[in-house]
Protein backbone atom coordinates (compact mmCIF):
# COMPACT_ATOMS: atom_id res chain seq x y z
CA UNK A 1 0.00 0.00 0.00
CA UNK A 2 2.80 2.37 0.94
CA UNK A 3 4.50 1.65 -2.40
CA UNK A 4 1.28 2.37 -4.19
CA UNK A 5 0.83 5.69 -2.39
CA UNK A 6 4.43 6.59 -3.03
CA UNK A 7 4.05 5.80 -6.74
CA UNK A 8 0.87 7.88 -6.88
CA UNK A 9 2.57 10.84 -5.26
CA UNK A 10 5.55 10.52 -7.56
CA UNK A 11 3.25 10.69 -10.56
CA UNK A 12 1.24 13.66 -9.26
CA UNK A 13 4.37 15.54 -8.42
CA UNK A 14 6.44 14.46 -11.40
CA UNK A 15 6.34 17.83 -13.15
CA UNK A 16 7.73 19.61 -10.15
CA UNK A 17 10.07 16.78 -9.29
CA UNK A 18 11.78 17.09 -12.63
CA UNK A 19 13.07 20.55 -11.75
CA UNK A 20 13.72 19.71 -8.13
CA UNK A 21 17.15 21.02 -7.34
CA UNK A 22 19.57 19.12 -5.24
CA UNK A 23 19.02 20.88 -1.93
CA UNK A 24 15.45 21.99 -2.18
CA UNK A 25 12.70 19.85 -0.76
CA UNK A 26 9.24 20.02 -2.24
CA UNK A 27 6.59 20.35 0.42
CA UNK A 28 3.33 18.98 -0.85
CA UNK A 29 -0.15 18.80 0.53
CA UNK A 30 -3.33 17.09 -0.53
CA UNK A 31 -6.55 18.36 0.97
CA UNK A 32 -10.09 17.18 0.62
CA UNK A 33 -13.02 19.18 1.83
CA UNK A 34 -16.71 19.85 1.91
CA UNK A 35 -18.05 23.24 1.07
CA UNK A 36 -21.24 25.23 1.12
CA UNK A 37 -21.76 27.11 -2.15
CA UNK A 38 -23.87 30.16 -3.01
CA UNK A 39 -23.98 31.05 -6.67
CA UNK A 40 -25.55 34.03 -8.37
CA UNK A 41 -25.15 33.86 -12.13
CA UNK A 42 -27.48 36.43 -13.59
CA UNK A 43 -26.82 35.13 -17.11
CA UNK A 44 -28.58 31.90 -16.11
CA UNK A 45 -30.95 33.17 -13.42
CA UNK A 46 -31.53 36.20 -11.20
CA UNK A 47 -31.98 33.87 -8.22
CA UNK A 48 -29.26 32.81 -5.81
CA UNK A 49 -28.58 29.07 -5.86
CA UNK A 50 -27.28 27.42 -2.70
CA UNK A 51 -25.93 23.96 -2.08
CA UNK A 52 -22.95 21.86 -1.17
CA UNK A 53 -19.84 20.73 -2.95
CA UNK A 54 -16.68 18.73 -2.61
CA UNK A 55 -13.24 20.22 -3.08
CA UNK A 56 -9.75 18.93 -3.65
CA UNK A 57 -6.52 20.83 -3.48
CA UNK A 58 -2.97 19.75 -4.26
CA UNK A 59 -0.21 22.22 -3.50
CA UNK A 60 3.56 22.08 -3.81
CA UNK A 61 6.00 24.59 -2.38
CA UNK A 62 9.76 24.94 -2.44
CA UNK A 63 12.40 27.63 -2.13
CA UNK A 64 12.64 29.56 -5.34
CA UNK A 65 16.40 30.04 -5.15
CA UNK A 66 19.12 27.71 -3.88
CA UNK A 67 20.93 30.36 -1.92
CA UNK A 68 18.02 32.39 -0.58
CA UNK A 69 15.50 31.25 2.02
CA UNK A 70 13.22 34.24 1.62
CA UNK A 71 11.44 33.38 -1.64
CA UNK A 72 9.08 30.41 -1.78
CA UNK A 73 7.35 29.28 -4.94
CA UNK A 74 3.99 27.53 -4.73
CA UNK A 75 1.97 25.76 -7.40
CA UNK A 76 -1.56 24.68 -6.64
CA UNK A 77 -4.26 22.63 -8.34
CA UNK A 78 -7.82 23.10 -7.17
CA UNK A 79 -11.11 21.44 -8.07
CA UNK A 80 -14.64 22.02 -6.82
CA UNK A 81 -17.78 20.11 -7.74
CA UNK A 82 -21.11 21.17 -6.34
CA UNK A 83 -24.86 20.89 -6.66
CA UNK A 84 -27.08 23.84 -5.81
CA UNK A 85 -30.79 24.60 -5.69
CA UNK A 86 -32.77 27.77 -6.18
CA UNK A 87 -34.62 29.22 -3.14
CA UNK A 88 -37.86 27.39 -4.00
CA UNK A 89 -36.09 24.07 -4.75
CA UNK A 90 -37.57 24.02 -8.24
CA UNK A 91 -34.34 24.26 -10.20
CA UNK A 92 -30.84 22.86 -9.87
CA UNK A 93 -27.51 24.24 -10.95
CA UNK A 94 -24.41 22.07 -11.04
CA UNK A 95 -20.96 23.52 -10.72
CA UNK A 96 -17.72 21.92 -11.90
CA UNK A 97 -14.56 23.94 -11.70
CA UNK A 98 -10.79 23.56 -11.83
CA UNK A 99 -8.00 26.06 -11.30
CA UNK A 100 -4.23 26.18 -11.29
CA UNK A 101 -2.15 28.88 -9.68
CA UNK A 102 1.55 29.54 -9.39
CA UNK A 103 3.12 32.23 -7.31
CA UNK A 104 5.91 33.38 -5.06
CA UNK A 105 5.86 34.46 -1.42
CA UNK A 106 8.51 36.53 0.29
CA UNK A 107 9.21 35.89 3.94
CA UNK A 108 8.98 39.12 5.89
CA UNK A 109 10.61 39.74 9.27
CA UNK A 110 8.91 37.81 12.06
CA UNK A 111 6.77 39.73 14.55
CA UNK A 112 6.17 38.37 18.05
CA UNK A 113 6.78 34.83 16.86
CA UNK A 114 4.48 35.19 13.85
CA UNK A 115 6.04 34.27 10.53
CA UNK A 116 4.71 36.57 7.81
CA UNK A 117 4.76 36.02 4.08
CA UNK A 118 3.58 38.36 1.36
CA UNK A 119 3.37 37.54 -2.29
CA UNK A 120 1.41 37.14 -5.46
CA UNK A 121 0.31 34.45 -7.82
CA UNK A 122 -1.23 34.08 -11.22
CA UNK A 123 -4.04 31.64 -11.80
CA UNK A 124 -6.13 30.19 -14.58
CA UNK A 125 -9.66 29.13 -13.75
CA UNK A 126 -12.32 27.27 -15.65
CA UNK A 127 -15.73 26.23 -14.42
CA UNK A 128 -18.95 25.12 -16.01
CA UNK A 129 -22.31 25.95 -14.49
CA UNK A 130 -25.32 24.06 -15.77
CA UNK A 131 -28.88 25.09 -15.04
CA UNK A 132 -30.70 21.90 -15.85
CA UNK A 133 -34.10 23.47 -16.54
CA UNK A 134 -32.84 25.93 -19.14
CA UNK A 135 -33.89 24.09 -22.25
CA UNK A 136 -32.02 25.92 -24.99
CA UNK A 137 -29.14 27.65 -23.25
CA UNK A 138 -28.35 25.73 -20.07
CA UNK A 139 -24.63 26.46 -19.63
CA UNK A 140 -22.43 29.27 -18.57
CA UNK A 141 -18.66 29.18 -18.28
CA UNK A 142 -16.47 30.80 -15.69
CA UNK A 143 -13.16 31.34 -17.39
CA UNK A 144 -10.56 33.72 -16.02
CA UNK A 145 -6.95 34.44 -15.36
CA UNK A 146 -6.02 36.54 -12.36
CA UNK A 147 -3.08 38.16 -10.69
CA UNK A 148 -3.73 37.71 -6.97
CA UNK A 149 -2.10 39.29 -3.96
CA UNK A 150 -1.71 36.94 -1.06
CA UNK A 151 -0.48 36.83 2.48
CA UNK A 152 0.32 34.04 4.94
CA UNK A 153 0.73 34.18 8.68
CA UNK A 154 2.14 31.20 10.58
CA UNK A 155 2.49 30.61 14.28
CA UNK A 156 4.03 27.56 15.93
CA UNK A 157 2.38 26.10 18.99
CA UNK A 158 4.63 23.84 20.99
CA UNK A 159 3.04 21.16 23.17
CA UNK A 160 4.72 18.46 25.16
CA UNK A 161 4.33 15.91 22.41
CA UNK A 162 4.47 17.86 19.19
CA UNK A 163 4.94 21.14 17.46
CA UNK A 164 1.74 22.27 15.79
CA UNK A 165 1.51 25.08 13.31
CA UNK A 166 -1.33 27.56 12.81
CA UNK A 167 -1.64 28.97 9.30
CA UNK A 168 -3.77 31.82 8.03
CA UNK A 169 -3.84 32.49 4.31
CA UNK A 170 -5.62 35.27 2.50
CA UNK A 171 -5.77 36.07 -1.19
CA UNK A 172 -7.49 38.64 -3.38
CA UNK A 173 -7.58 39.14 -7.16
CA UNK A 174 -6.34 42.50 -8.42
CA UNK A 175 -5.91 42.21 -12.19
CA UNK A 176 -6.79 39.76 -14.88
CA UNK A 177 -8.98 38.82 -17.76
CA UNK A 178 -12.26 36.99 -17.77
CA UNK A 179 -14.90 35.55 -20.01
CA UNK A 180 -18.36 36.98 -19.48
CA UNK A 181 -21.08 36.31 -22.04
CA UNK A 182 -22.86 39.29 -23.48
CA UNK A 183 -26.14 39.85 -21.73
CA UNK A 184 -28.79 38.52 -24.08
CA UNK A 185 -26.43 36.59 -26.34
CA UNK A 186 -26.78 32.85 -26.64
CA UNK A 187 -23.96 30.33 -26.59
CA UNK A 188 -24.98 29.36 -30.12
CA UNK A 189 -24.19 32.89 -31.21
CA UNK A 190 -20.93 32.97 -29.32
CA UNK A 191 -19.45 29.62 -30.18
CA UNK A 192 -21.24 28.32 -33.29
CA UNK A 193 -21.51 31.61 -35.15
CA UNK A 194 -18.32 32.88 -33.50
CA UNK A 195 -19.37 36.23 -32.02
CA UNK A 196 -17.24 36.48 -28.90
CA UNK A 197 -15.61 39.84 -29.39
CA UNK A 198 -17.28 41.42 -26.33
CA UNK A 199 -17.02 38.36 -24.12
CA UNK A 200 -13.34 38.51 -23.14
CA UNK A 201 -12.77 41.37 -20.75
CA UNK A 202 -10.11 43.01 -18.65
CA UNK A 203 -10.77 42.64 -14.94
CA UNK A 204 -9.52 44.65 -12.01
CA UNK A 205 -10.90 45.95 -8.76
CA UNK A 206 -13.43 48.11 -10.64
CA UNK A 207 -15.38 45.06 -11.83
CA UNK A 208 -14.09 42.09 -9.87
CA UNK A 209 -13.49 41.79 -6.16
CA UNK A 210 -13.01 38.85 -3.93
CA UNK A 211 -11.20 37.42 -1.01
CA UNK A 212 -10.47 33.86 -0.04
CA UNK A 213 -9.00 32.91 3.29
CA UNK A 214 -8.33 29.82 5.33
CA UNK A 215 -7.34 29.20 8.89
CA UNK A 216 -5.68 25.83 9.33
CA UNK A 217 -3.68 23.88 11.80
CA UNK A 218 -0.96 21.38 10.94
CA UNK A 219 -0.56 18.56 13.42
CA UNK A 220 2.37 16.16 13.07
CA UNK A 221 1.76 12.57 14.04
CA UNK A 222 4.18 9.68 14.19
CA UNK A 223 4.31 8.92 10.48
CA UNK A 224 2.48 11.80 8.89
CA UNK A 225 1.44 15.39 9.25
CA UNK A 226 -2.24 16.23 9.02
CA UNK A 227 -3.84 19.56 8.38
CA UNK A 228 -7.35 20.71 9.27
CA UNK A 229 -8.71 23.96 7.88
CA UNK A 230 -11.75 26.21 7.91
CA UNK A 231 -12.06 28.80 5.20
CA UNK A 232 -14.22 30.90 2.99
CA UNK A 233 -14.09 32.53 -0.39
CA UNK A 234 -16.17 35.38 -1.74
CA UNK A 235 -16.01 36.45 -5.33
CA UNK A 236 -18.07 39.06 -7.16
CA UNK A 237 -17.70 40.35 -10.66
CA UNK A 238 -19.81 42.46 -12.93
CA UNK A 239 -19.55 42.94 -16.66
CA UNK A 240 -21.81 43.23 -19.71
CA UNK A 241 -24.66 44.24 -17.35
CA UNK A 242 -24.45 40.88 -15.64
CA UNK A 243 -23.57 40.20 -12.03
CA UNK A 244 -21.89 37.05 -10.78
CA UNK A 245 -21.25 36.05 -7.23
CA UNK A 246 -19.86 32.94 -5.62
CA UNK A 247 -19.49 32.42 -1.89
CA UNK A 248 -18.18 29.30 -0.27
CA UNK A 249 -17.45 28.23 3.28
CA UNK A 250 -15.43 25.06 3.54
CA UNK A 251 -13.83 22.53 5.83
CA UNK A 252 -10.62 20.89 4.70
CA UNK A 253 -8.80 17.80 5.87
CA UNK A 254 -5.50 16.86 4.34
CA UNK A 255 -2.05 15.48 4.64
CA UNK A 256 1.25 17.31 4.24
CA UNK A 257 4.44 15.62 3.17
CA UNK A 258 7.58 16.10 1.22
CA UNK A 259 8.78 13.65 -1.34
CA UNK A 260 12.19 13.00 0.17
CA UNK A 261 11.16 11.81 3.60
CA UNK A 262 7.83 10.24 2.70
CA UNK A 263 9.39 6.80 2.45
CA UNK A 264 9.62 6.71 6.25
CA UNK A 265 10.27 8.84 9.26
CA UNK A 266 13.53 7.03 9.86
CA UNK A 267 14.78 8.29 6.54
CA UNK A 268 14.97 11.94 7.55
CA UNK A 269 16.32 14.61 5.28
CA UNK A 270 19.95 15.64 5.86
CA UNK A 271 20.48 19.09 7.31
CA UNK A 272 21.50 20.56 4.00
CA UNK A 273 18.10 19.72 2.54
CA UNK A 274 16.01 22.79 3.18
CA UNK A 275 12.30 22.79 3.77
CA UNK A 276 10.19 25.75 2.62
CA UNK A 277 7.67 25.10 5.36
CA UNK A 278 4.52 26.12 3.51
Amino acid at each position, binding site marked *: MRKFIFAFLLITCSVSAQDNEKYKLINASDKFGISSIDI*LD*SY*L*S*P*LVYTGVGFRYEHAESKFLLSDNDRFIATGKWFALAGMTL*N*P*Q*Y*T*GTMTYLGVAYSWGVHYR*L*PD*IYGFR*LYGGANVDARYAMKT*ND*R*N*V*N*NPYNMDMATNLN*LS*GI*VQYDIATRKRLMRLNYR*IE*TPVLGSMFVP*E*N*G*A*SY*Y*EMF*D*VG*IVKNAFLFSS*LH*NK*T*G*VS*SELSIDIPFKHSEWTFGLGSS*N*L*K*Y*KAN*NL*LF*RQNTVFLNVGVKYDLYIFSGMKNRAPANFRNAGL
Partner: protein
Amino acid sequence: MKYRLLYFIISCMVLTSCIEDPEIPVNTNAGNFEALWKIIDTKYCYLDYKHINWDSVHTVYKARVDSGMDKYEFFDLMGAMLGELKDGHVNLYSDFDRSRYWKWFTDYPSNFNSNILYSDRYLGENYRVVGGMRYNFIDNGRIGYIYYGDFSDTFTDVNMSNILSYFSNCRGLIIDVRNNGGGYISLAEQLSSYFFTNDTITGYISHKTGDGHTDFSAPEAVKTPAHEKIQWQRPVAILTNRMSYSATNSFVVRMKMAPNAVIIGDKTGGGGGLPLSSEIPNGWMVRFSACPMYDADMQHTEWGIDPDIKQDMTTADANNGYDSIIEKAIFYLNR
Protein backbone atom coordinates in the same frame (compact mmCIF):
# COMPACT_ATOMS: atom_id res chain seq x y z
CA MET B 1 3.80 45.75 9.65
CA LYS B 2 1.09 44.28 11.84
CA TYR B 3 -1.23 47.16 10.90
CA ARG B 4 -0.44 46.88 7.20
CA LEU B 5 -1.49 43.27 7.27
CA LEU B 6 -4.67 44.19 9.09
CA TYR B 7 -5.43 46.92 6.53
CA PHE B 8 -4.89 44.44 3.71
CA ILE B 9 -7.35 41.96 5.22
CA ILE B 10 -9.97 44.62 5.95
CA SER B 11 -9.66 46.19 2.50
CA CYS B 12 -10.19 42.79 0.86
CA MET B 13 -13.39 42.31 2.80
CA VAL B 14 -14.65 45.83 2.09
CA LEU B 15 -13.93 45.52 -1.63
CA THR B 16 -16.08 42.43 -1.98
CA SER B 17 -19.12 44.41 -0.93
CA CYS B 18 -18.53 47.27 -3.39
CA ILE B 19 -20.42 45.66 -6.29
CA GLU B 20 -24.09 45.94 -5.53
CA ASP B 21 -26.44 43.00 -5.77
CA PRO B 22 -29.49 43.27 -8.05
CA GLU B 23 -32.88 43.86 -6.57
CA ILE B 24 -35.05 40.77 -6.58
CA PRO B 25 -38.79 41.37 -6.17
CA VAL B 26 -40.47 39.76 -3.20
CA ASN B 27 -42.04 36.36 -3.61
CA THR B 28 -45.67 37.44 -3.70
CA ASN B 29 -48.14 37.30 -6.57
CA ALA B 30 -47.55 41.00 -7.19
CA GLY B 31 -43.76 40.61 -6.97
CA ASN B 32 -43.73 37.61 -9.28
CA PHE B 33 -45.97 39.41 -11.76
CA GLU B 34 -43.61 42.39 -11.83
CA ALA B 35 -40.58 40.13 -12.20
CA LEU B 36 -42.12 38.19 -15.09
CA TRP B 37 -43.39 41.31 -16.84
CA LYS B 38 -39.97 42.94 -16.55
CA ILE B 39 -38.10 39.92 -17.91
CA ILE B 40 -40.24 40.03 -21.04
CA ASP B 41 -40.09 43.83 -21.21
CA THR B 42 -36.30 43.90 -21.17
CA LYS B 43 -35.27 40.62 -22.76
CA TYR B 44 -37.97 39.47 -25.21
CA CYS B 45 -36.88 40.29 -28.74
CA TYR B 46 -40.11 40.63 -30.73
CA LEU B 47 -42.18 43.23 -28.81
CA ASP B 48 -41.69 45.91 -31.47
CA TYR B 49 -41.70 43.54 -34.45
CA LYS B 50 -45.05 42.14 -33.33
CA HIS B 51 -46.42 45.58 -32.41
CA ILE B 52 -47.19 44.48 -28.87
CA ASN B 53 -47.88 47.27 -26.39
CA TRP B 54 -46.31 45.60 -23.36
CA ASP B 55 -47.06 48.56 -21.08
CA SER B 56 -50.71 48.12 -21.89
CA VAL B 57 -50.41 44.41 -21.09
CA HIS B 58 -48.98 45.43 -17.71
CA THR B 59 -51.98 47.62 -17.00
CA VAL B 60 -54.49 44.97 -17.99
CA TYR B 61 -52.92 42.07 -16.15
CA LYS B 62 -51.78 43.92 -13.05
CA ALA B 63 -55.41 44.78 -12.37
CA ARG B 64 -56.20 41.07 -12.39
CA VAL B 65 -53.41 40.04 -10.01
CA ASP B 66 -54.82 39.36 -6.57
CA SER B 67 -52.86 38.31 -3.52
CA GLY B 68 -55.61 35.79 -2.74
CA MET B 69 -55.15 33.85 -5.99
CA ASP B 70 -53.93 30.32 -5.51
CA LYS B 71 -50.92 29.10 -7.49
CA TYR B 72 -53.05 27.54 -10.23
CA GLU B 73 -55.07 30.70 -10.82
CA PHE B 74 -51.97 32.83 -10.75
CA PHE B 75 -50.14 30.45 -13.11
CA ASP B 76 -53.04 30.53 -15.57
CA LEU B 77 -53.10 34.33 -15.46
CA MET B 78 -49.36 34.57 -16.08
CA GLY B 79 -49.66 31.98 -18.85
CA ALA B 80 -52.39 34.09 -20.44
CA MET B 81 -50.19 37.17 -20.23
CA LEU B 82 -47.36 35.33 -21.98
CA GLY B 83 -49.89 34.11 -24.56
CA GLU B 84 -50.18 37.74 -25.71
CA LEU B 85 -46.75 37.26 -27.27
CA LYS B 86 -48.11 34.61 -29.68
CA ASP B 87 -44.82 32.76 -29.53
CA GLY B 88 -44.29 29.01 -29.33
CA HIS B 89 -40.89 29.63 -27.78
CA VAL B 90 -42.46 31.26 -24.72
CA ASN B 91 -43.29 28.97 -21.84
CA LEU B 92 -43.74 29.31 -18.12
CA TYR B 93 -42.51 26.26 -16.21
CA SER B 94 -43.73 25.43 -12.72
CA ASP B 95 -43.55 22.17 -10.82
CA PHE B 96 -47.18 21.46 -11.72
CA ASP B 97 -47.68 22.82 -15.24
CA ARG B 98 -46.12 24.34 -18.34
CA SER B 99 -47.86 27.18 -20.13
CA ARG B 100 -47.68 27.14 -23.92
CA TYR B 101 -48.92 28.86 -27.03
CA TRP B 102 -49.81 26.42 -29.78
CA LYS B 103 -51.92 28.44 -32.19
CA TRP B 104 -49.01 28.62 -34.58
CA PHE B 105 -50.08 25.16 -35.71
CA THR B 106 -53.51 24.43 -34.22
CA ASP B 107 -55.10 27.19 -36.32
CA TYR B 108 -53.85 25.61 -39.54
CA PRO B 109 -54.30 22.36 -41.49
CA SER B 110 -52.15 19.58 -40.05
CA ASN B 111 -50.92 18.42 -43.49
CA PHE B 112 -49.60 15.24 -41.91
CA ASN B 113 -51.01 11.77 -41.52
CA SER B 114 -48.75 9.20 -39.89
CA ASN B 115 -50.99 6.29 -40.94
CA ILE B 116 -50.40 7.19 -44.57
CA LEU B 117 -46.71 7.86 -43.98
CA TYR B 118 -46.13 4.38 -42.58
CA SER B 119 -48.21 2.67 -45.24
CA ASP B 120 -46.51 0.42 -47.80
CA ARG B 121 -46.59 3.18 -50.39
CA TYR B 122 -44.11 5.22 -48.39
CA LEU B 123 -42.07 4.15 -45.36
CA GLY B 124 -43.86 0.85 -44.85
CA GLU B 125 -42.97 -1.42 -41.96
CA ASN B 126 -39.47 -2.34 -43.02
CA TYR B 127 -37.90 1.06 -43.18
CA ARG B 128 -34.40 1.61 -41.86
CA VAL B 129 -33.74 3.92 -38.96
CA VAL B 130 -30.58 5.53 -37.63
CA GLY B 131 -29.94 8.75 -35.71
CA GLY B 132 -33.62 9.63 -35.77
CA MET B 133 -33.74 9.26 -39.58
CA ARG B 134 -36.35 6.80 -40.85
CA TYR B 135 -35.65 6.03 -44.47
CA ASN B 136 -36.68 3.86 -47.37
CA PHE B 137 -37.01 3.82 -51.13
CA ILE B 138 -40.27 5.07 -52.54
CA ASP B 139 -41.69 5.40 -56.07
CA ASN B 140 -40.33 2.00 -57.07
CA GLY B 141 -36.85 2.83 -55.88
CA ARG B 142 -36.51 6.01 -57.91
CA ILE B 143 -36.66 8.34 -54.91
CA GLY B 144 -35.00 8.17 -51.52
CA TYR B 145 -37.25 9.19 -48.66
CA ILE B 146 -36.14 10.27 -45.17
CA TYR B 147 -38.50 11.19 -42.37
CA TYR B 148 -36.78 13.19 -39.64
CA GLY B 149 -39.17 14.08 -36.85
CA ASP B 150 -36.99 15.58 -34.13
CA PHE B 151 -33.87 17.75 -34.27
CA SER B 152 -33.04 16.46 -30.79
CA ASP B 153 -32.22 13.05 -32.29
CA THR B 154 -28.54 13.29 -33.04
CA PHE B 155 -26.96 11.78 -36.11
CA THR B 156 -23.38 11.56 -37.27
CA ASP B 157 -21.54 12.07 -40.53
CA VAL B 158 -21.18 8.30 -40.73
CA ASN B 159 -24.96 7.90 -40.39
CA MET B 160 -25.58 10.42 -43.16
CA SER B 161 -22.84 9.01 -45.38
CA ASN B 162 -24.49 5.60 -45.15
CA ILE B 163 -27.96 6.96 -45.83
CA LEU B 164 -26.89 9.04 -48.83
CA SER B 165 -24.86 6.12 -50.22
CA TYR B 166 -27.92 3.90 -49.81
CA PHE B 167 -29.81 6.32 -52.06
CA SER B 168 -26.92 6.85 -54.49
CA ASN B 169 -28.84 5.47 -57.46
CA CYS B 170 -31.95 7.55 -56.83
CA ARG B 171 -33.00 10.47 -58.99
CA GLY B 172 -33.71 12.61 -56.00
CA LEU B 173 -34.15 12.72 -52.29
CA ILE B 174 -37.00 13.77 -50.04
CA ILE B 175 -36.34 14.99 -46.51
CA ASP B 176 -39.62 15.19 -44.67
CA VAL B 177 -39.46 17.50 -41.64
CA ARG B 178 -43.19 17.85 -41.13
CA ASN B 179 -44.24 17.67 -37.46
CA ASN B 180 -40.62 18.27 -36.51
CA GLY B 181 -40.91 20.77 -33.65
CA GLY B 182 -37.20 21.51 -33.48
CA GLY B 183 -34.29 20.62 -31.24
CA TYR B 184 -30.61 21.37 -31.61
CA ILE B 185 -29.93 24.21 -33.99
CA SER B 186 -26.44 22.83 -34.55
CA LEU B 187 -28.04 19.73 -36.11
CA ALA B 188 -29.98 21.99 -38.47
CA GLU B 189 -26.65 23.35 -39.65
CA GLN B 190 -25.12 19.88 -39.89
CA LEU B 191 -28.01 18.39 -41.87
CA SER B 192 -28.10 21.28 -44.32
CA SER B 193 -24.31 21.20 -44.81
CA TYR B 194 -24.64 17.98 -46.86
CA PHE B 195 -26.55 19.90 -49.55
CA PHE B 196 -24.21 22.83 -50.11
CA THR B 197 -21.19 22.93 -52.40
CA ASN B 198 -19.81 26.20 -51.01
CA ASP B 199 -19.95 27.92 -47.64
CA THR B 200 -22.96 30.21 -47.95
CA ILE B 201 -24.44 33.00 -45.87
CA THR B 202 -27.92 31.68 -45.18
CA GLY B 203 -29.07 34.11 -42.52
CA TYR B 204 -28.26 36.56 -39.80
CA ILE B 205 -28.63 36.68 -36.03
CA SER B 206 -28.59 39.43 -33.40
CA HIS B 207 -29.42 39.76 -29.73
CA LYS B 208 -30.73 42.27 -27.21
CA THR B 209 -28.01 44.59 -25.95
CA GLY B 210 -30.09 46.65 -23.55
CA ASP B 211 -33.44 46.92 -21.84
CA GLY B 212 -35.06 48.97 -24.62
CA HIS B 213 -37.31 47.25 -27.12
CA THR B 214 -35.09 48.32 -30.00
CA ASP B 215 -31.71 47.68 -28.39
CA PHE B 216 -30.16 45.05 -30.62
CA SER B 217 -26.64 44.17 -31.67
CA ALA B 218 -25.71 44.53 -35.32
CA PRO B 219 -26.83 41.40 -37.18
CA GLU B 220 -24.05 38.91 -37.75
CA ALA B 221 -23.94 36.62 -40.76
CA VAL B 222 -24.72 32.96 -40.17
CA LYS B 223 -22.97 30.71 -42.64
CA THR B 224 -23.95 27.24 -43.65
CA PRO B 225 -20.71 25.40 -44.39
CA ALA B 226 -20.52 22.93 -47.23
CA HIS B 227 -19.56 19.56 -45.83
CA GLU B 228 -16.02 18.70 -46.90
CA LYS B 229 -16.64 15.05 -47.77
CA ILE B 230 -20.35 14.33 -47.92
CA GLN B 231 -22.31 16.29 -50.49
CA TRP B 232 -25.62 15.34 -52.11
CA GLN B 233 -25.64 17.14 -55.44
CA ARG B 234 -28.86 15.86 -56.92
CA PRO B 235 -32.30 17.37 -56.38
CA VAL B 236 -33.67 17.29 -52.87
CA ALA B 237 -37.17 18.21 -51.73
CA ILE B 238 -37.83 19.39 -48.20
CA LEU B 239 -41.38 18.75 -46.98
CA THR B 240 -42.82 21.18 -44.45
CA ASN B 241 -45.97 21.92 -42.54
CA ARG B 242 -46.96 24.32 -39.78
CA MET B 243 -45.44 22.05 -37.14
CA SER B 244 -42.00 22.48 -38.71
CA TYR B 245 -40.79 24.79 -35.98
CA SER B 246 -37.74 26.31 -34.31
CA ALA B 247 -34.57 24.41 -35.32
CA THR B 248 -36.59 22.94 -38.20
CA ASN B 249 -37.47 26.46 -39.25
CA SER B 250 -33.76 27.25 -39.17
CA PHE B 251 -33.05 24.17 -41.31
CA VAL B 252 -35.60 25.29 -43.89
CA VAL B 253 -34.14 28.82 -43.91
CA ARG B 254 -30.78 27.31 -44.77
CA MET B 255 -32.15 24.85 -47.34
CA LYS B 256 -33.87 27.74 -49.13
CA MET B 257 -30.35 28.70 -50.22
CA ALA B 258 -29.14 25.20 -51.12
CA PRO B 259 -28.44 24.87 -54.86
CA ASN B 260 -30.60 21.81 -55.65
CA ALA B 261 -33.26 22.11 -52.97
CA VAL B 262 -36.93 22.91 -53.15
CA ILE B 263 -39.31 23.45 -50.25
CA ILE B 264 -42.70 21.79 -50.73
CA GLY B 265 -45.76 21.78 -48.48
CA ASP B 266 -47.15 24.37 -46.11
CA LYS B 267 -45.52 27.39 -44.56
CA THR B 268 -43.39 26.46 -41.57
CA GLY B 269 -44.58 27.35 -38.09
CA GLY B 270 -41.74 29.78 -37.43
CA GLY B 271 -39.98 30.12 -34.11
CA GLY B 272 -37.22 32.35 -35.40
CA GLY B 273 -36.09 33.62 -32.03
CA LEU B 274 -33.42 31.66 -30.22
CA PRO B 275 -34.74 31.17 -26.68
CA LEU B 276 -33.08 31.99 -23.39
CA SER B 277 -34.50 31.38 -19.91
CA SER B 278 -34.86 33.18 -16.63
CA GLU B 279 -36.61 32.70 -13.30
CA ILE B 280 -38.98 34.60 -11.07
CA PRO B 281 -38.90 34.67 -7.25
CA ASN B 282 -41.35 31.81 -6.76
CA GLY B 283 -39.03 29.49 -8.68
CA TRP B 284 -40.99 29.32 -11.91
CA MET B 285 -38.88 29.42 -15.03
CA VAL B 286 -39.76 31.42 -18.11
CA ARG B 287 -38.41 30.66 -21.57
CA PHE B 288 -38.59 33.40 -24.17
CA SER B 289 -37.29 34.35 -27.61
CA ALA B 290 -34.15 36.41 -27.09
CA CYS B 291 -32.07 36.37 -30.26
CA PRO B 292 -33.93 37.10 -33.51
CA MET B 293 -32.80 35.15 -36.53
CA TYR B 294 -33.23 36.43 -40.06
CA ASP B 295 -33.05 34.83 -43.48
CA ALA B 296 -30.43 35.68 -46.10
CA ASP B 297 -32.50 38.72 -47.13
CA MET B 298 -32.55 40.00 -43.52
CA GLN B 299 -36.24 39.16 -43.14
CA HIS B 300 -37.51 37.90 -39.79
CA THR B 301 -38.23 34.18 -39.67
CA GLU B 302 -40.45 34.30 -36.58
CA TRP B 303 -43.71 33.80 -38.49
CA GLY B 304 -42.43 30.97 -40.67
CA ILE B 305 -40.95 30.30 -44.11
CA ASP B 306 -43.06 30.11 -47.23
CA PRO B 307 -42.53 26.99 -49.33
CA ASP B 308 -41.32 27.23 -52.91
CA ILE B 309 -44.24 25.02 -53.92
CA LYS B 310 -47.36 25.36 -51.81
CA GLN B 311 -49.16 22.07 -51.38
CA ASP B 312 -51.76 20.99 -48.81
CA MET B 313 -52.86 17.44 -48.20
CA THR B 314 -56.25 16.87 -49.77
CA THR B 315 -59.02 14.76 -48.32
CA ALA B 316 -59.46 12.96 -51.63
CA ASP B 317 -55.80 11.92 -51.74
CA ALA B 318 -55.86 10.90 -48.09
CA ASN B 319 -58.91 8.72 -48.68
CA ASN B 320 -56.96 6.94 -51.41
CA GLY B 321 -53.90 6.48 -49.20
CA TYR B 322 -51.88 9.22 -50.84
CA ASP B 323 -49.93 11.91 -49.12
CA SER B 324 -50.45 14.90 -51.42
CA ILE B 325 -47.25 16.60 -50.30
CA ILE B 326 -45.05 13.55 -50.85
CA GLU B 327 -46.74 12.95 -54.19
CA LYS B 328 -46.03 16.53 -55.20
CA ALA B 329 -42.37 16.02 -54.28
CA ILE B 330 -42.19 12.75 -56.26
CA PHE B 331 -43.70 14.51 -59.27
CA TYR B 332 -41.23 17.36 -58.93
CA LEU B 333 -38.18 15.11 -58.59
CA ASN B 334 -39.25 12.96 -61.56
CA ARG B 335 -39.69 15.91 -63.94
